[in-house]
């Protein structure tokens, strides 16, 4: 019995650390709608600075003072980031801020190694909380007890802050309806900055408080960020109490789950999230999002098919790309194939995100399923390459059909997080089912047949498929189906009123996007000759998101350019410099500032301005539609 009580207490202590970080994320998202990917980075910097301070300052006062000082220092960094970077892009398309914070995260990961060195750092234990107390023969660390108390205390302080202060009232109001708060004359700038500072402070405090139990190292951020997002979503976005309950739920399920299934930890949070979101689409304590006032489709120029001149230009670009084997060596051709494959992957996500308005955080699942489809067909059934290429993506299609059915019941960030949960579940199956998938050692030896084996042939294959896929998806955008899909994106209510079965349209779009991603994955398996669980992993999903955002989410085919720029730059930087993350992150941040609509989005806007300046040309372009803000 004593054991179960202690295990429960241990779970509570884990929950407290998780809650601190999660609460900060929840507040930031609730008010600013920023998916703050850098939250883990702030957590990590908090730990690093606290390590340095507590090593230098002596005594109990030095330790606790160091922890607080570290959290404050990081909050200041957060304020600077908010004022210099994020303020410029609040009006950018939704999720664009994710790109900025992703760039920051990349930079921070290299910076901490530059500043604090590559070794794992182990800090001091907390003065006064070094040992354990005896509980019927079981040891309970006193620091755990401290954390168990701290969690509810922070919750209480936040509750008072939100319920009893004017600032808290404003924050709650902004969480519920940003536009209304702005209309009532509240200075949103400072509200956002202060909220961001509080959120970052909590993240850094959470990191600093890990010092007595963890090692400080440069991968801490990725270890926590996804888990924290999951906790926030399970609890319901913007709900602090929800975050607390979710943290306790997840931690306790883990603490007791490992007694029965020791391998459960790897997937537990995602299973919980999937179940919660299917049963309660807005998390445990969340409320349905208010209908958006802004119609996303109207903030941009209306989409139109390419003019015949532009078609010729696209064709010319394709022809130029197809001549690459005439002068490039094998390495460049293989890189070219890889980029073409990522173009397929990016346009498939772009179709879902831009046309369907459904941002998936787990799109790599269908890419990877396509790749595993190839592996199973080629290795187990021994089918020839051409058959595999035709059948392999069907695994992606099936996965998308099953998961998409559940996912399209939700919308916004909840949709995104459910797709992430499904992707992680697929990933963990690939990772754990060693007999079939080879686990993380993957499936090797999937090389292409001789007709496609030479780099130039494979490049032409990849390029041809990429061109076909892009054209097909574009054609779909301007087909009746595409119009219906865009209608569900722009206004669910109105589209349903005119008889569009929104869920079915969105589900179909999800399956199309998943199958297309599967085609990319299938080619990728042959390009690399092997398949690994990595092909389904979070980082690949994030890469896809970055490509789409970089290209411009409000464009018809921006993802093509986004994929080419991001992938080429990534491969080149990794090859040329040891600080590739720092440079790539810096580049992304720069792009975000210079091109707040993405690369293609910005080019289109410039072209539009030029057209406006010159006498009216086509009647379609002469009538810009005002947004209904």
């Amino acid at each position: 019995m004593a054991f179960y009580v202690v295990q429960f207490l241990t779970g509570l202590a884990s929950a407290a650390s998780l809650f601190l970080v999660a609460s900060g994320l929840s507040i930031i998202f609730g008010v600013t709608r920023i998916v703050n990917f850098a939250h883990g980075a702030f957590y990590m910097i908090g730990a690093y600075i606290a390590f340095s301070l507590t090593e230098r300052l002596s005594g109990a006062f030095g330790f606790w003072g160091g922890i607080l000082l570290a959290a404050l220092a990081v909050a200041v960094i957060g304020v600077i980031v908010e004022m210099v970077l994020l303020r410029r892009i609040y009006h950018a398309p939704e999720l664009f801020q994710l790109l900025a914070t992703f760039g920051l995260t990349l930079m921070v990961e290299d910076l901490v190694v530059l500043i604090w060195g590559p070794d794992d750092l182990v800090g001091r234990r907390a003065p006064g909380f070094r040992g354990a107390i005896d509980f019927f023969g079981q040891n309970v660390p006193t620091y755990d007890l401290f954390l168990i108390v701290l969690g509810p205390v922070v919750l209480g302080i936040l509750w008072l802050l939100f319920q009893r202060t004017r600032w808290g009232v404003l924050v709650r109001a902004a969480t519920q309806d940003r536009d209304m708060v702005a209309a009532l004359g509240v200075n949103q700038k400072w509200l956002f900055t202060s909220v961001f500072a509080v959120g970052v402070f909590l993240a850094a405090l959470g990191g600093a408080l890990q010092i007595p139990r963890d090692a400080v190292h440069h991968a801490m951020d990725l270890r926590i960020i996804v888990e924290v997002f999951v906790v926030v979503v399970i609890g319901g976005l913007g709900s602090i109490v929800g975050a607390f309950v979710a943290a306790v739920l997840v931690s306790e399920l883990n603490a007791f789950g490992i007694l029965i299934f020791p391998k459960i930890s790897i997937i537990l949070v995602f299973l919980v999230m999937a179940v919660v979101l299917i049963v309660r689409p807005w998390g445990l304590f969340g409320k349905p999002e208010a209908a958006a006032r802004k119609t996303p489709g109207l903030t941009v120029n209306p989409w139109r098919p390419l003019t015949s001149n532009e078609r010729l230009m696209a064709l010319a670009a394709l022809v130029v790309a197809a001549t690459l084997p005439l002068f490039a060596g094998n390495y460049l051709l293989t890189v070219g194939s890889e980029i073409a494959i990522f173009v397929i992957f990016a346009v498939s996500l772009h179709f879902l995100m831009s046309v369907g308005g459904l941002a998936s955080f787990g799109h790599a699942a269908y890419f990877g399923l396509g790749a595993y489809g190839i592996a199973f067909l080629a290795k187990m059934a021994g089918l020839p390459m051409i058959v595999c290429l035709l059948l392999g993506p069907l695994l992606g299609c099936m996965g998308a059909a099953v998961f998409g059915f559940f996912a399209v019941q939700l919308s916004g960030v909840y949709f995104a997080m459910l797709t992430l949960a499904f992707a992680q579940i697929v990933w963990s199956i690939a990772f754990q089912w060693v007999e079939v998938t080879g686990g993380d050692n993957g499936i090797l030896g999937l090389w292409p047949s001789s007709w496609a084996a030479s780099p130039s042939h494979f490049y032409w294959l990849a390029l041809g498929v990429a061109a076909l896929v892009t054209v097909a998806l574009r054609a779909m955008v301007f087909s009746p189906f595409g119009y219906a899909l865009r209608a569900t994106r722009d206004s669910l209510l109105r589209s349903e009123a005119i008889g569009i079965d929104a869920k079915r349209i969105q589900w179909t779009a999800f399956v199309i996007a998943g199958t297309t991603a599967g085609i990319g994955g299938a080619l990728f398996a042959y390009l690399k000759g092997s398949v690994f669980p990595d092909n389904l992993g979070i980082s690949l999903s994030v890469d896809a998101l970055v490509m789409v955002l970089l290209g411009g989410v409000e464009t018809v085919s921006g993802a093509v350019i986004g994929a080419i720029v991001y992938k080429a730059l990534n491969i080149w930087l990794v090859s040329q410099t040891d600080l590739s993350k720092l440079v790539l992150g810096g580049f992304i941040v720069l792009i975000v500032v210079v091109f707040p609509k993405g690369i293609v989005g910005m080019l289109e806007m410039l072209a539009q301005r030029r057209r406006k300046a010159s006498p009216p040309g086509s009647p379609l372009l002469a009538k810009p539609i005002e947004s209904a803000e």
Partner: protein
Amino acid sequence: MRARNIIVGAAFAFLAGGMAHSALAQDIKIGEINSYSLLPAFTEPYRKGWQLAVEEVNAAGGINGKKLVVISKDDGGKPADAQTAANELVSSEGVAMLAGTFLSNIGLAVSDFANQKKVFFLAAEPLTDAITWSKGNKYTFRLRPSNYMQAAMLVEAAAKLPAKRWATIAPNYEYGQSAVAVFKKLMSEKRPDIQWVDEQWPPQGKIDAGPVVQAVAAANPEAILNVTFGADLVKFVREGNTRGLFKGREVVSFLTGEPEYLDPLKDETPEGWIVTGYPWYSIKTPEHDAFLKAYQAKYNDYPRLGSIVGYQTIKAAAAILAKAGSTDPEKMIAAAEGLSMPSPFGEITFRKIDHQSTLGAFVGKTALKDGKGVMVDSAYKKGGDYLPSDAEVAKLRPKD
């Protein structure tokens, strides 16, 4: 548009940087790949090690008079990126051989690439048994003692312990799984009386140490096998110390004696664990003295195990290239099979039967000295003594 000028400027700066390191045609080039950005704690000393080796090789006249050049790439911890790097090294840099890698899945990915493209590959660090056995191929050689060898070394010491109730804790991925599997198998062969009472599989890098330690303690084992390392190990040890998990229990632990993993523990180092590792401070052989002196003179820092691995990888590559007298992969394979060479740990041989080197490891006990973790009572175990019989190996390895 000042910002755009900065981008353009930066791009040109990188172009220029990229061109600067191109090597001369008559040099012999080795393409080296490792997870530099993902695992700097290991790869930084590793890089220092191989840089020292390159310097020594060239100071001694290079390879049959030609200068040795190593072109190094980061794989970011992703198998697919490692293959991109391998392809660049082979197709565009024209390297004579590939070397390096840390993670097992990356080692396997590069090994499969090498097999497909018929390129010589010297795997430095990946521990998986698959790379020389079940997924072995004729182009791939491996330097470090494998999972099996380290398990066999630890079992030798562990089997002497009186403990009968054992629990295991290992990261939930291939390395952890196969380390536990081999240890259990070899241990149960020697000691049929042993019971395995609990196993814990925290996700790599994400251990929730409190509940895990409690769960192990609840099974009341007499001894524990630990396979976690890095930050997970730190958390496990700290929780274990606070909760008294290690009191009165024997612990056998993979890799914990390596300075990379032992040093961060500082004064929290648990005493008396039986570990594999690298006690650089207590190895008194002329070969190691020479290496230690050269390393400390160059870097003003002590070597980690990564330094040894990096150093010996390039030394071995140079020896293979020198003996082959050619960069033809078939000739290099013929030269490498059965080749013996000196190393800081004494003479090692690349076995013909499975391309595994006989580099060994030190087995000893952890202890606290001046607030730091050290390995004591350590003895070098020759790798060749801890491999299964040739008949068994032949069964494990596919025919070329």
